């Protein structure tokens, strides 16, 4: 499997109960998985554990044959090759759109870097906004910058934390269709978190229902049948 997570356990400091109680999932390359659950179900925590922003009590995370974390090692987030779009986007306010996108491309040489920035700007349709600062953009544009920035280093896995929570409803519908097209176009394996079933239906190939730190059930969506029928189902 491209992404393999086994028996993940986690508790926040000082908490008696574990927030995540044995979470496991396998994801194939190019699949879009949605973690759906109420607030407090631990869905954002799972993302942070995969990203390496929190350290699990136990469990294994493997992304693209690379062991990010098991009982004897913990890879820091910067070495994992995982891209993340934050709920509040976390665009660097002191950098322009172009500089934000360029930020994660330090491993490329100058020529590749420039080419990649152009490619990403074109992909999210923001070429003419390249010299703007984040505060000069609308919410939807900011989200596209955040997405371009996360995709630019070609992460093995992309994770999105509540990608639509900061957008108004009318925008939400259009953007999630665009987003799905974009993710499929780039073939990016994606995990995203939401509390809105409709978002999950529209964007994901598979929906994972979470409750009390565990998987309640998993469902393949309509998208899955049209886009990628060979993905195995573990319901």
């Amino acid at each position: 499997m491209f992404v393999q997570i086994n028996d993940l356990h986690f508790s926040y400091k000082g908490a008696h109960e574990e927030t995540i109680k044995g979470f496991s999932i396998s994801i194939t390359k190019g699949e879009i998985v949605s973690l759906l659950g109420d607030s407090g179900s631990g869905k954002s925590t799972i993302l942070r554990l995969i990203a390496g922003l929190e350290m699990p009590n136990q469990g294994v995370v493997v992304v693209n044959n690379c062991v990010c974390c098991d009982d004897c090692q913990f890879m820091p987030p910067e070495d994992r090759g995982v891209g993340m779009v934050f709920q509040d986007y976390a665009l660097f306010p002191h950098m322009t759109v172009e500089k934000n996108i360029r930020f994660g491309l330090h491993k490329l040489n100058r020529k590749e870097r420039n080419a990649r920035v152009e490619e990403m700007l074109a992909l999210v349709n923001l070429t003419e906004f390249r010299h703007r600062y984040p505060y000069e953009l609308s919410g939807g544009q900011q989200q596209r910058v955040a997405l371009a920035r996360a995709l630019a280093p070609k992460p093995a896995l992309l994770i999105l934390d509540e990608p639509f929570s900061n957008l108004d409803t009318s925008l939400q519908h259009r953007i999630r269709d665009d987003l799905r097209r974009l993710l499929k176009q780039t073939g990016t394996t994606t995990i995203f978190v939401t509390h809105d079933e409709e978002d999950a239906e529209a964007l994901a190939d598979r929906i994972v229902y979470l409750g009390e730190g565990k998987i309640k059930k998993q469902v393949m969506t309509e998208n899955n049948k049209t886009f990628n029928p060979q993905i195995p189902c573990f319901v």
Partner: protein
Amino acid sequence: MNWHAVKRQLNGWAILSFLAILLIVLPGIVVLVELFAPVNDNWQHIQEYLLPRYVRNTLFIMVATGVLTTVIGTSLAWFVTVYDFPFRRFFKWALILPLAIPPYIGAYTYHGILNYTGVIQTTLRNQFGITVDQSYFNIMSIQGTVFIFTLFLYPYIYTITRAFLHNQSSSMIENARILGRGSWDIFFTVVIPISRVAIIGGVSLVLMEVLNDYGVVKYFGIQTFSTAIFSTWFGMKDTSSALKLAGTLMILVIAILTMERLVRGRKQFSYASTKVKPLKPRPLQGWHRYAVFAYVSLVFAIAFVIPFTQLTAWTFLTFDTVFTEEFWQLVWNTVRVAFTATVIILLFALIIANYTRLFPSNMTRVISKVTTLGYSIPGAAIAIAVITLFLWLDDKVLDLARALDLSQTFVFRTTLIMLIFAYVIRFLAIGYNSIESGFEKVGKSFTEASRMLGWNTVQTFFRVDIPMIKGAIMSAFILVFIDIMKELPLTLFLQPFNFSTLATQAFKYVSDEKIHEAALASIVIVLMSGLLIFVSHKVLDKEAD
């Protein structure tokens, strides 16, 4: 915690923070250890005959200053925030200016104004033929000390309370108005209770300053802990007893801080509503308008305009004799030593604040507390502890040099290292607090975003964290720099031979009863601090927008 969790905690940030903290607590340990050392005859004498007086005087000054600064600071904050009166916008920041005048400078200035040869008595004698009873004009008493502290320390309470009222209270005050409460009523039933935490925070700063002061009480001849520590140390040459006094003083401070925690109790609310809605000031009618204006002007006049004018006059009087080559040397010394110490403090503060932010645990909570402890240790205690420490260190270096048969050795206590070390201990808290709150405002997501894009914590620190909290670093720099420039006791006792700053030179003139000559150095301190205070408030105001 499993073993890689331990490994994750033990990184460069942690090691550097631990080293910094170790340096900070070392002098405190020296003082506290001495508390348990066997007593000598001197100490018994001090304990029996002198200590009760030190305690009485110190407590009286603290209580009286605490009450008066609270009344003045809170009332000013309330008037400036809630009412509109002539020149309100000017007073809003002008009322902070007395902070630019260190209390010891205020003390000798007022003494100079009020004494027999001062401007008031001379005018009365020469113009009106009135000779007054000297006892009415004697400011060198314990009441005079309280007067001076109140004038020049109330801005601590004023600024904290005003910021709180301005940002947080509008909805509550507006609600109380809608519910039909009068202003007076609102002040006591709403404003005081909700701003209690802010006021107590301000008062504890004032009390720390009072305990730290050496200049005012020394000049006025009031026996408090500070003067007692130094006179035991230099007069009786009894370091052990001086350290014991310092230890007793530290216990007093710890008691105050604990009391503050207890008083606050569960009421640690900060009303950190993210929607900051400033209160719209309400115009005052009739005589109220002039009464408020008169009160505010009076405080500003006594606490700033009068002493500042007097200092200016004295400066012109003595300019030719005082303004020499050596004076430039003083300015250069002051700026150089303050700048060096400030930069070191900011480095420490940034490292520790970043560590406690990135790796929150019980350990980092302790580190964060300890970092801010230094500010509550009075200068007298730090000075004697640091000297004791450096004497020991120099001894060890000498031993080492002998063992290695070196002809030359390095002596720390004759260098600026000792003074700068003491500054770092005392003022790290100031830098740390503003950098920590800068980090808090920015949050962690930018740092996390940077790490998700492949940069480690050190690279992220320089590329993202520092640019994001530039404003906080800038205001930390200004606050620390001002404090060091004004500092007296540490500089006075730890400066190397043949080295003086503006503050110590001014105090030296004053001690030699050359009050007029002290004016130039004093006014440079006041102008530089005033300017920096102005700049920092512009920066802070802009950030708040």
